[in-house]
């Protein structure tokens, strides 16, 4: 589905190794990894296995905290947010596949605070594609990529668990 105009798409597994490398030295040994569904959830699990320390893994679905509900409504398929650790006082690394406008991260941070007051929240992303609409930046980035607004960057996982990135026309437009 990649279009001729699309730039060089980074290899997802390679970007994951680079991301883990950057996190290894800096992340607290007991930091919880919280993945934003669905791509971020896969990455949080992989990172917890790659980075030394004791990292509880949680999952967050930001559907109820999104800022486009009034415009787009509630689309099906929301998943249960699961945070199997005490958010109060925790160090949390929020994990997402693609950082773009920053709106999902805003929603995720809001949602985390409804579970308690974390000591610290950091952000790790596989791909930073620029285009921010909010004052949000990542602490750890696997790869950077510049793509046109009408394209979306999609992470997928094959049955064997291997991750891959693709650039696709924006769904619904």
């Amino acid at each position: 589905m990649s279009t001729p105009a699309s730039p060089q798409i980074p290899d997802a597994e390679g970007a994951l190794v680079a991301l883990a490398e950057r996190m290894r030295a800096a992340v607290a040994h007991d930091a919880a990894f919280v993945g934003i569904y669905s791509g971020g959830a896969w990455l949080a699990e992989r990172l917890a296995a790659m980075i030394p320390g004791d990292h509880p893994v949680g999952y967050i679905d930001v559907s109820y905290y999104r800022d486009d509900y009034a415009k787009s409504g509630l689309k099906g398929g929301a998943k249960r947010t699961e945070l199997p650790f005490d958010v109060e006082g925790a160090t949390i690394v929020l994990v997402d596949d693609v950082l773009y406008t920053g709106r999902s991260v805003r929603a995720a941070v809001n949602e985390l605070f409804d579970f308690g007051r974390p000591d610290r929240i950091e952000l790790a992303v596989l791909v930073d594609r620029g285009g921010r609409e909010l004052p949000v930046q990542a602490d750890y980035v696997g790869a950077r990529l510049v793509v046109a607004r009408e394209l979306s960057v999609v992470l997928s996982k094959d049955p064997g668990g291997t991750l891959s990135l693709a650039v696709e026309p924006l769904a619904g437009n």
Partner: protein
Amino acid sequence: MRNPQLNANGELTHLLTLEGLPADVIRQILDTAEPFASIAEREVKKVPLLRGKAVFNLFFENSTRTRTTFEIAAKRLSADVINLNIGASSTSKGETLLDTVDNLVAMNADMFVVRHSQSGAPHLIAAHLNAHKRTHVHVVNAGDGRHAHPTQGLLDLYTIRHYKREFHGLTVAIVGDVLHSRVARSLIHGLTTLGTPEVRVIGPRTLLPTRVEALGVRVFSDMREGLAGCDVVVMLRLQSERMKGALLPSAGEYFKHYGLTQDKLAAARPDVIVMHPGPMNRGVEIDSAVADGERSVILPQVTFGIAVRMAVMSIIAGN
């Protein structure tokens, strides 16, 4: 004519009845309810989906329990809830239903949760709003006359799916006063739409609608025969006013034949679940040993009811 519950894109904008509602819309509601069930476990027991929306509970007929669960559901979605006890105000001054609605729309209502003793009242309000292009205002039927109680039907479906996973192999019995029960009607429509192979109604002929078979159910007047092999038993509330008329001899007589006891329940499957929409008449339609027994899921039904009502409100308000 288009189904008045759906917008031009086939999305749910009012919830009036489960009759004629497509299976994928019902499944969407049940799927949406699932993650809402866990919100009560959070430090902050709400999500901001309906922040700034005004939900009006319009109860023309009393029901503390249903009104409370709608109120909790709306508040967990961060909506502002306004409870109107209409019976005691406007109508007694002669205002019509639609004038009341128009006044509340002028106060910027976003959603009406309507309970009315007249069948069709929520439908009338929804049609009125649609006709006046007030498509941003949504209606949920919280029980109208003998017609429908769709959120109760949905929470019953949610409960059955929670314990039995799917509907395809199930035998479900609905027991008691089906004639006067909007709960039974909504549940029957939901069960058949989702492909339940056998839905039974059990009760004295005087409390079953004539031609109830047309709804796609099997009819039994003997309790043990009807309960044989059932996966799910739904007991209906026997309203005390039924005993005053000629429909039934006495509560004791009713209990003897149709009251659910451990003994009668033994005819069902060993893993049967027992449901009741509440409020229960212990010793009339259900024995305490069953109501409080290990097969009873009556209290989980109440908890699931909040999640299901959150799902309904958040879906229609977004469409």
